[in-house]
């Protein structure tokens, strides 16, 4: 089956929903495709019916936006995994919930694939009970179930606070929040935040909630290791400035640890969009302008996939891409110059807020350096292929000459079913740490990310055979 529309939006989170709503309201034919059985993405993920009945909707605006998009007649292909790009470089390949292959074509493609959580390994990170903050948030907010009774929340970034609050709401005892940086203290760097009172109120609300529950907030601390048998029973914290030396041990039965988010760019890269390394985060990001336009005509990247910036910025970016498409289509419903200027100003303000917020927390590139340098040799880094830090280090130093993809080849790190989504950040850090200074005149892979390969996720051979049969032959 081939669906051909005016606009194809990949990803039903805040950015994708905002773009789809605006485009459909202007009368364009929009297909919105999402891997999950329900729209919403990670941020607007719908709670289970039981949780809705008991606790209500923690993010009602998400439910309203989804209902609005559906009421506008957007063709919503939920449960569809987009895994590749056809030989024309434009048609997307997806698999439906029953394994049926679908080709998706449109004049304009909006990539709103979101972000991955940024994980970093430590001894014991594979123990049951160790989760990412995002997963814990999902369990707590959408299912009303915390990942354990005594939980430590650790890592870095503003997201740790709402996660700790959700865990409290779901009935967990949060033993503490350990933040790698020192964002929560009066500082001149925080002064620009005063221009964003709504954001500050939100933050103050989380801090107050944690204080009421007497949850300690430790700053400048990282997880040094976890221990346990059948599941995690204790966690050791260390100072961020000296992550190899344990400072204190906490008894827990769950640990939620993560260092924020990194853009999910595989689809944008398979579409041929130029990417570059972000100066602050070091993450590979598609090169986009204010409208989300990429180096590929007709391909837009918006939301976290274009650079992590939070829900408000994601929604504005989605709206900006929609505005540009409406202008290009000559739609009578296209926004006028004043509305464009207003949206752009909003986008710029939120971009400044992101930069300010980023500056309060340790930069991921710096964390990557610190954590990689002190990572224990025996720790498994790539869980899919069981590759240790020592193996990545020796591959990087002896054979790869500092080339990330060569280090993958020589160590197998990143070759398993997750294709480096979990270990990519850590492997890149280990390779960077192990590599000598680049030789003069030497050319080197400049982007700190594994190459994007299709299928983006493993695809059943049966699906490929069915796709080949659609083409009218057996290949």
């Amino acid at each position: 089956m081939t669906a051909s529309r005016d606009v194809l939006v990949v990803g039903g989170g805040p950015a994708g929903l905002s773009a789809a709503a605006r485009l459909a309201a202007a009368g364009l034919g929009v297909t919105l495709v999402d891997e999950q059985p329900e729209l919403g993405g990670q941020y607007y993920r719908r709670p289970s019916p039981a949780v809705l009945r008991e606790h209500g909707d923690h993010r009602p605006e998400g439910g309203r936006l989804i209902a609005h998009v559906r009421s506008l007649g957007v063709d919503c292909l939920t449960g569809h995994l987009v895994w590749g790009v056809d030989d024309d470089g434009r048609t997307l390949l997806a698999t439906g919930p029953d394994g049926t292959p679908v080709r998706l074509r449109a004049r304009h493609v909006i990539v709103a694939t979101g972000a991955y959580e940024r994980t970093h390994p430590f001894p014991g990170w594979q123990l049951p009970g160790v989760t990412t903050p995002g997963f814990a948030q999902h369990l707590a907010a959408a299912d009303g179930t915390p990942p354990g009774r005594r939980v430590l929340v650790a890592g870095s970034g503003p997201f740790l606070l709402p996660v700790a609050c959700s865990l409290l709401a779901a009935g967990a005892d949060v033993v503490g929040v350990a933040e790698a940086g020192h964002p929560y203290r009066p500082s001149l760097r925080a002064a620009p935040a005063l221009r964003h009172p709504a954001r500050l109120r939100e933050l103050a609300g989380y801090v107050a909630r944690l204080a009421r529950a007497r949850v300690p907030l430790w700053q400048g601390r990282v997880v040094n290791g976890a221990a346990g048998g059948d599941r995690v029973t204790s966690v050791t914290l260390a100072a961020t400035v000296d992550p190899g030396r344990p400072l204190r041990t906490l008894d827990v039965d769950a640990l939620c640890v993560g260092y924020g988010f990194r853009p999910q760019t595989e689809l944008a890269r398979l579409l041929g969009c130029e990417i570059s390394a972000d100066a602050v985060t070091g993450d590979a990001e598609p090169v986009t302008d204010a409208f989300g336009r990429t180096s590929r005509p007709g391909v837009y990247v918006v939301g976290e996939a274009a650079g992590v910036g939070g829900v408000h910025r994601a929604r504005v970016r989605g709206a900006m891409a929609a505005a540009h498409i409406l202008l290009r289509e000559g739609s009578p419903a296209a926004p006028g110059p004043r509305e464009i200027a207003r949206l752009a100003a909003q986008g710029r303000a939120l971009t400044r807020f992101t930069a300010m917020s980023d500056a309060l927390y340790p930069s991921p590139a710096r964390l990557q350096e610190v954590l990689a340098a002190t990572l224990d040799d025996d720790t498994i880094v790539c869980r899919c292929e069981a590759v240790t830090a020592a193996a990545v280090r020796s591959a990087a130093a002896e054979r790869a000459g500092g080339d990330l993809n060569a280090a993958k080849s020589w160590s197998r790190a990143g070759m398993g079913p997750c294709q480096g989504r979990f270990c990519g950040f850590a492997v890149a850090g280990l390779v960077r740490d192990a590599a000598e200074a680049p030789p003069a005149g030497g050319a080197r892979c400049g982007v700190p990310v594994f190459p994007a390969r299709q299928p983006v996720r493993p695809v059943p051979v049966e699906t490929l055979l069915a796709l080949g049969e659609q083409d009218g032959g057996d290949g």
Partner: protein
Amino acid sequence: MSAQTADVVVIGAGVLGGAAAFHLALGGHRVIVLDRGAPGREGSGTTAGNLHVQAVHTRRPGQEVPLDSARFLPLQRAASDRWNSVEAELEASVELRRSGGFTIAETPEQRAELIAKHAWEERAGIRTEVLDGDGARAALPLLGPTVTAATWCPLDGYANPLLTTPAYLAAAVRHGARLHPFCPVRAVERSGSGWRVTAGDLTVEAPHVVDVAGPWLGEIAALAGIGLRMTPVAIQMHVTVRLPETLRYLVQHIGEGLSVKQVTAGNLLIGGGWPALRLDPDGRSPVSLSSVLGNVAQAARVLPFVRDLRLLRTWAGPLAATPDEMPVIGEVPGAPGFLVAGGTYAFTFAPLWGETLRCLVEGKPAPVDVRDLGPDRLLEPAAPAAPYEEAR
């Protein structure tokens, strides 16, 4: 910077460069190996790692001329023998596995080809056995109902290319070779009776240059003012998720581009030379979906258990093909001391070509007669030599 001196400059740190550097360094030559990027990252890092011992006269999809199978076989026999000693010589595991392989046929014409191929193999001293469809399925019950005949060769096998090239390079370095990755060659000039090679901020003078630059073989030769007709292409590979040990043998197709085997890690590797979307000499060549679908469909037809697997990843890599599909190895006429080696099946031939290149440098008889495989047949008027960056 003043020029260094060496006995041999090897250009290209792929499997051929590694093998040549190893054999030369072992022979006491001072060897410098240069590569534009990380070692073993192009054809040698993207190949499937098949050891082709029985005749391979099938064509890749898009391949215009068949190679000369009968001429190829004595070379394959010699290459096969050398693989037996590779792990001992290199003091490293390359996951070498000689568990044999099947070449299958599905049509009467393909069956006739199998029988003809078997006769050439006998003459070359390569033991193979012809089986009918049921005989093939008795030997390998995984084969599907469309298989009407097969040849079995106990010598076919596999080595892990991701271990082989590093092992060759490491052994070469142990014997004194110097390896310079991320050091693109910018100039190759005559200097006295030898050559001067400029790469990165390095200048090396040496009586011999060995151009084993794979898909860039022709471009490196052009820097030296030598015109060589090469026809590099990009081909793609497909790998499934891991599965328990299921397929111990290499399975190939006589009439279509198809090779399937299970690697040591457990993944099933499906290849056969299907073309990538295009050859991108500066990055990773993009894969073609129609080649994915075609190659995977063949594999699932010949080996029906493939239907139940999941495809994990695809990738493409360059293949340093020649217009006549035969290997090229030898000194360039009119350019004394400038040797080239390359062409398809370079992985299978690497141990043999490494030893052969050492003999050619030393002016000694090669272990196999390669006089008809020299670059003279590929010579053409040289294009004006462009600086390396522009040549790319």
